[in-house]
């Protein structure tokens, strides 16, 4: 356990403001903290709690071409240091999004990333082709790793071939940089990462949620109507961090790390392990100001340690 206490107020004489910006190659972020898909709504829900302009970026909730009903409730459960969800990507579809949401969020200076979903390869392509025509988006995050859509958590990110073919298909039509989001539910995450890289993705983000379940012994029913769901939150951090470390060591493209980030220290662990930026998910529910607090904690860390540029922390694990 490390302590957030380290971030307590300390007088900082003569220290310059740390430069938190990171360069993803295709995109420069003012800081490494991106709000994760499905946990930040469409970007408007958090405006009473923070100014989205202060974030490194935000990813909107997964979008299919068509509106989706999502799964029946209960859709959420709490587990030790984690949450289980089977939202099932309920959503408004890409057309309504462009009509009703995009005009409202386009005004933010911060990069907007669209989490692209599809039942079949063709639907992913349709989403991207449609969105290509609408300005105000900085990148696509290809969600090939949601465990809540098909039976038993099947998704393209479980297989290197499936990953290759979908990434290739989307990359071909995309006019924006492509981030491919990987699943942790695999034996060899590096193999999948290399497939996505070979297919031309510009970056990787990982991890999506872990396929999991919970049971109420009093009723003998699963907590989720859907039986299985995705586990996220601090519980998964050590596994996700290991995967980010493995992938970052083996690919030549930027890696965006996530899983259980609750504090600036957690985010820094991912950077040290090799991630160039991070996404923050579940923490947004626990405290809607989380992303901004995490950014401030990272800033303090750099200032206290005399680190002028946070990019120098990336991949700096001491072995």
């Amino acid at each position: 356990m490390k302590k957030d206490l380290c971030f307590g107020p300390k007088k900082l004489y003569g220290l310059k403001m740390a430069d938190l910006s990171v360069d993803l190659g295709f995109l420069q972020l003012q800081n490494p903290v991106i709000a994760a898909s499905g946990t930040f709504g469409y970007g408007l829900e958090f405006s009473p709690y923070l100014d989205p302009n202060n974030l490194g970026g935000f990813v909107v909730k997964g979008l299919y071409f068509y509106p989706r009903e999502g799964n029946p409730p209960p859709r959420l459960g709490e587990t030790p240091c984690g949450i289980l969800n089977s939202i099932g990507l309920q959503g408004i579809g890409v057309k309504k999004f462009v009509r009703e949401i995009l005009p409202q969020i386009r005004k933010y200076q911060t990069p907007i990333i669209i989490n692209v979903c599809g039942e079949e390869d063709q639907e992913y392509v349709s989403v991207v082709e449609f969105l290509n025509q609408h300005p105000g988006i900085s990148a696509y995050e290809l969600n090939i790793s949601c465990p809540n859509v098909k039976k038993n958590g099947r998704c393209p990110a479980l297989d290197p071939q499936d990953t290759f073919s979908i990434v290739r298909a989307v990359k071909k039509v995309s006019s924006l940089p492509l981030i491919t989001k990987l699943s942790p539910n695999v034996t060899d995450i590096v193999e999948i990462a290399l497939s996505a890289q070979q297919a031309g993705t510009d970056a990787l983000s990982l991890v999506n949620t872990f396929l999991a379940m919970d049971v109420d012994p009093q009723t003998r029913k699963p907590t989720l109507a859907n039986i299985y769901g995705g586990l996220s939150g601090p519980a998964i951090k050590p596994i996700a961090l290991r995967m980010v470390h493995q992938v970052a060591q083996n690919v030549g493209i930027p890696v965006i790390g996530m899983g259980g980030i609750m504090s600036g220290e957690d985010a820094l662990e991912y950077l040290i392990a090799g991630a160039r930026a991070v996404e923050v998910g579940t923490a947004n529910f626990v405290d809607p100001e989380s992303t901004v607090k995490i950014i401030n904690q990272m800033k303090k860390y750099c200032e206290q340690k005399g680190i002028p540029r946070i990019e120098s922390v990336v991949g700096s694990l001491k072995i």
Partner: protein
Amino acid sequence: MKDSQAEIIHKQTWNEYILLEIYSPRISSQSQPGQFLMIRINPQLHPLLRRPFSIHSTKGSRIEIFFQNSGLGTSLLSRKKIHDQLDIIGPLGKGFFLDNSLREKEVVLIGGGRGIAPLFFLAQSLRTFPCGVKIFYGGKTHKDLPLKDRLEEKRFDLYCSTDDGSYGYKGYVSELFEATFPSLNPKAVFACGPEEMMKKISHLTQQQKIPAQFSLESMMGCGIGACWGCVKRIKKKGSEEWIKICEEGPVFRSEEIVWS
């Protein structure tokens, strides 16, 4: 909006039921009956999520919550002491819909168990609306009616029931309501409690063509419309949808709710 250091000013305990009075001028001044709060129980990571609680009352710069110890989060909350501070988001959601046509009319409020929590705030507001307020309050046994005295003190017309007959009418509060109904002729009904209870009252009031509103519960991840976890089946312009109750509820009208 967030109060990260709202102080507990007063605490009252009846077995598993707890009433906390909390200092928060902001929440107090902004709240409507039926709205709720998301409270972080402690800064550790287990339990992780905030827990939703209805606003039980506002008085001056203070608010109250009333809850039942029914699991890890509420049990930790029940151990908080005076001067402890709470991290609270709120007020959230939409409250009960109060319609000018109700002025000077008779209304009925029905609370089952901890479902009484939001109705006290509502009752106080309705009284000054003004309306004639009758409160039905049911529980398993007489120990599950801890707010009885308080409601009597405030001189609300009170009808109590217990499943075991240890106090008041013997049976469900929905049955008591049904039995008493002919003599009441309310212009509106507001209810909160176990789903089965609300469902029965919904059928009954629809039969009688009396508008009714229900405060629904669901597992909530965020309380602010971001996680899409808290959905209930709601009729919207004819078609049914999964609607986030934290945002568009937790109060819905009888005719909107698709009971499961």
